[in-house]
């Protein structure tokens, strides 16, 4: 598809803005304190998790509760291949292996469950985290005779750049899928799966493919984050909280849009790094309440507020959004 065909001048403005942002981010570590480099890296990680979750569950409506499983696979791949006592592969290779492993897991999960009703998918993905934790725990204790593993050191700056790269890749993939045949197919599945099938959409194939693609980024993020955890055991790697957080961020920010999960991720990452250390339980408790409030009163998330703001502000800002949206509908 010809990209330049549907970029009007307002969009070109956005692209310039994005370019400036990319330049800013790429040079960020050169003039910032370690604390902020770490914060940005965490924000990137959360953006990856939130956007990749929303990539599949957003349009199709199939709630995947498995992000923790794919993230954990990435983490544990690093734990196995990038150990403190001697990495078996260079870090980029480890990340690729972690991504592939997540892809395979998601693909298999999809094969088993996505040909069935959505509820089976939700149940299976929910239990997957616990299953993997128990399985790997068993294998580690009985076969490898270890309780946990230490991971080799990687600097904050390296992690920053790798996560930035993964983040950009995730956002680009999400963006292009939305505008592609695959994106249209997914939306039709979310709209009415039976009708979609009757219009020629191979629904099972579409679902499995997108689900597996979304898992790739979660695995990559896991493998990249693992070195910062230093010590990893199956319980730490496969933690259901890592399923909760991406969903929370995406719903909070607005899972119908591309930028919604990004906003949600940024807000969550920032508040986490400030509050979670001191008040871990009140922190998660509050977010649980926020999630429920959002589902009831703001189902389209923060991003859902934008059209309402747009109507009130009018003027150039509204033209910026309206111009973009009309184009989006006419060209797919």
């Amino acid at each position: 598809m010809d990209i330049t065909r549907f970029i009007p001048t307002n969009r070109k403005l956005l692209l310039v803005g994005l370019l400036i942002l990319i330049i800013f981010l790429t040079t960020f570590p050169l003039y910032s304190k370690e604390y902020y480099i770490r914060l940005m890296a965490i924000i990137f990680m959360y953006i990856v998790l939130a956007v990749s979750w929303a990539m599949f569950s957003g349009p199709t409506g199939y709630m995947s509760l498995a992000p923790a499983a794919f993230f954990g696979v990435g983490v544990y791949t690093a734990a196995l291949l990038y150990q403190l006592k001697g990495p078996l592969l260079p870090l980029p290779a480890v990340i690729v292996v972690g991504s592939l492993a997540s892809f395979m897991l998601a693909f298999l999960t999809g094969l088993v469950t996505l040909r069935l009703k959505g509820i089976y998918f939700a149940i299976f993905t929910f239990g997957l985290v616990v299953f993997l934790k128990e399985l790997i725990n068993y294998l580690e204790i009985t076969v490898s005779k270890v309780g946990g593993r230490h991971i080799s050191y990687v600097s904050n700056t390296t992690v920053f750049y790798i996560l930035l790269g993964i983040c950009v890749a995730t956002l680009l993939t999400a963006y292009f899928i939305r505008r592609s045949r695959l994106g249209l197919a997914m939306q039709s599945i979310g709209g009415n799966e039976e009708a979609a099938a009757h219009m020629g959409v191979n629904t099972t194939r579409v679902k499995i493919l997108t689900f597996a693609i979304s898992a790739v980024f979660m695995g990559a993020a896991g493998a990249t984050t693992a070195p910062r955890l230093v010590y990893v055991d199956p319980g730490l790697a496969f933690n259901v909280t890592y399923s909760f957080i991406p969903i929370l961020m995406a719903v909070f920010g607005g899972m119908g849009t591309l930028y919604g999960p990004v906003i949600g991720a940024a807000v969550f990452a920032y508040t986490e790094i400030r509050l979670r250390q001191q008040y871990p339980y009140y922190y998660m408790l509050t977010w649980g309440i926020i999630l429920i409030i959002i589902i009831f009163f703001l189902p389209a998330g923060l991003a859902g507020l934008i059209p309402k703001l747009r109507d009130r502000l009018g003027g150039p800002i509204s033209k910026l959004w309206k111009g973009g949206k009309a184009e989006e509908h006419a060209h797919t």
Partner: protein
Amino acid sequence: MTETILKIVVSGLLNGGIYALIAMGLSLQYGVAKVLNIAHGEFIMLGALITWTLYTGFGINPLLSLAISGPLLFVIGFVLHRTLFTSLKNRSPSPAALEGNSLLVAFGLMFIIQNIAILRWSALGKSYKYLDTVVWVAGTAFRVNRLVALAVAVGVGVTFYLFLTRSRPGKAIRAAAQDPGTAGLMGININRVLPLCFGLGAFLAGLAGLLISMCYTGSTPFMGLSNTVIALIVVVLGGLGSIPGSFIGGLILGLIGSIVSNWDTALVLVAFYAIFMILLLIRPVGIFGKK
């Protein structure tokens, strides 16, 4: 040899009975109230920890404490459904959206309840001893508490099973599970039955938690998750929406778990999940499910 078999069977029935209670509770909530309550395990956890508090703090006998914890959890469940999930039903544009939304709300609840529990009870394991004496049956040693728990679990389970299949209100509940619309037309007050069943499910979870705390040590605020996963597997095994199926499925899985546990305890959940995967491949509707 007979000793081992007897131990396996008793253990299997005990766990199975507990699984049956948990799964029937979940099945009530999903089948009738149409909420896949992934926070179900947290109610089990509350049952266990409340029982611990009542026994170690106030000296109330665990079996009697059910009179407090049971209604308490029932009310919590009832209110939660009345406020949250009924409201969701009215706001959701389609059954698929309702399912997705209530799943997310339940997920949120799971974290809310868990974190409240950590704040109240801390993350450390809680245990107590009650009816810990040993009896000898057929040359095998059993603890009294386990036998009592088995009796209670299976007793309540069977009673509930009979209630559902033989009594009029029970049949009404099953009718509401199969077809809420028509059931409503037949004079069943859906607005009351749905939260009632949800509350009942919470009650059963609480009872299961009570029994678990009686027989096993180390109840923590984190014990809910694996119990929820087991409950989900049992519900699918028995057939989504079939409450009697959950009873049978629970017993079956309990026995299988006991056999696997005899070989290696750490493999139990793995084995359950493997069974789950095979089930999804060959007969997803479960034992009593309709195609």
